[in-house]
């Protein structure tokens, strides 16, 4: 009986020593620290709408639709699991997971990111190649390496099929192949 009373006193002591620990949230903010994975944010300056994020997303909430010379990149963040795969996959580092966690909303359409980017169409057949931004990034990266300096970067505005065709059409670019038999 005494042991029980002592035990109860110890329990009371645990509570009294803890005191009041309630955080003043929501009257004061309680921000997460470090690398908290909150709502994804798209840096539309860097994004070239390549779709690497869409390949990596487990919830498949990133969709790309090409229509009438415009590529629409759409994130339906309602089902986002905040895993960060999109951020890790992006070659332009255009996606960051912000610290925002107060994401409650009355309508899931408020949880959308939508970007519209102009498409580069093939100057020969008109099929979309990629976005203007993508072509710009390639041009920039190729331009940096002197050895790969290409006199005519006009092939960047041709789709792969038309590129092949243009090589065949241009005798100057044809390569002679001789086969030596042993």
């Amino acid at each position, binding site marked *: *009986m005494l042991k029980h009373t*002592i035990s109860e006193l110890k329990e009371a002591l*645990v509570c009294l020593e803890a005191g009041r620990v309630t955080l003043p949230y929501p009257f004061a903010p309680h921000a997460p*620290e*470090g690398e908290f994975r909150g709502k994804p944010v798209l840096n539309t300056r860097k994004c070239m709408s390549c779709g690497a994020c869409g390949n990596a997303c487990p919830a498949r909430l990133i969709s790309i639709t090409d229509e009438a010379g415009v590529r629409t990149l759409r994130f339906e963040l309602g089902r986002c699991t905040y895993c960060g795969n999109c951020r890790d996959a992006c070659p332009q580092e255009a996606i960051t997971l912000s610290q925002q966690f107060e994401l409650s909303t009355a309508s899931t359409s408020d949880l959308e990111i939508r970007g519209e980017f102009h498409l580069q169409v093939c100057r020969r057949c008109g099929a979309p190649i990629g976005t203007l931004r993508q072509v710009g990034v390639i041009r920039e990266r190729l331009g940096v390496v002197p050895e790969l300096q290409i006199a005519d970067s006009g092939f960047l505005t041709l789709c792969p099929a038309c590129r092949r065709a243009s090589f065949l059409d241009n005798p100057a670019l044809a390569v002679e192949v001789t086969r030596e038999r042993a």
Partner: protein
Amino acid sequence: MPRRARYIRTILLELERIHSHLLWIGLAHHFIGFDTLFMQAWRIREPVMWLTEYLTGNRKTYGMNRIGGVARDLPDDAHERIPPVLEKIADESARAVDAILEDASIRARLEGVGTLPTSAAKAYCVAGPTARGSGVDIDARRDHPFAAYPELDVEVCVEHGCDIWSRTLVRVRELFDSIKLVKQALKQIPSGPVMADFDEIAPFRVGVSSVEAPRGEVHHYAMTGPGNRPYRWRVRAPSYNNLQSIPALLKGQSIADAPISVASLDPCFSCTERIQTVDTTTGEVRIYRQEDLLSEFRKRHA
């Protein structure tokens, strides 16, 4: 998988075990009407949630395990951040446990209640603290070592009382053992890469794992698919077979002891499932019970 990745996985699993056992201690006492300990246990547990939020970016869904390693390295000051939290938790848990050890009401409610004899525990194939509280000496960390456990000193906590009090003691001992393991892992963790170097993952390759979760042995089956996505995934959580022992647990008990008896298995009801088939032509829905599945299986494999 690089050694550092193994250690990171181990540290996170043990941190999860710490917060899960404190969660259970709180919840179990809520079920016997002792809300004070519910609030205190969850108060003690909260710093672990903040710690894992700092280490991984989320309180609970760490998102760290990837094929070949872990997604990201621990922050640079992890060695400074983790030990103080562990010390505080060890200290406060010890005081709370010390306070309730001699509490006659708690002992009266938990001792001799929800008894699962060792033979029944083996027959029902229960796992985790439920099994170890009934004297069954199994622990996947020792029996099928994974991650960094071969290099750590795991203590398998077995009690022979077979009642809820034994399971409580198992979980309390595991809580302190987990704290020791995290400290040991932090001392021994090597530096190096956290992700293995490999190219594309071939599709339709199978991987099976057995991990000692806080509730017991959990098995995952995964088959890779095209496009670096999983094609098939199946999990057999320990609660699925732990819950099968409920009839044996509840036999001869009063209804008032039913909630705590069921809760003593630390059940995750989300880990249970049932097979439902839908006939796409008629729209008929059928639930398969254990007897149906067994008779179907026996018919086909007679």
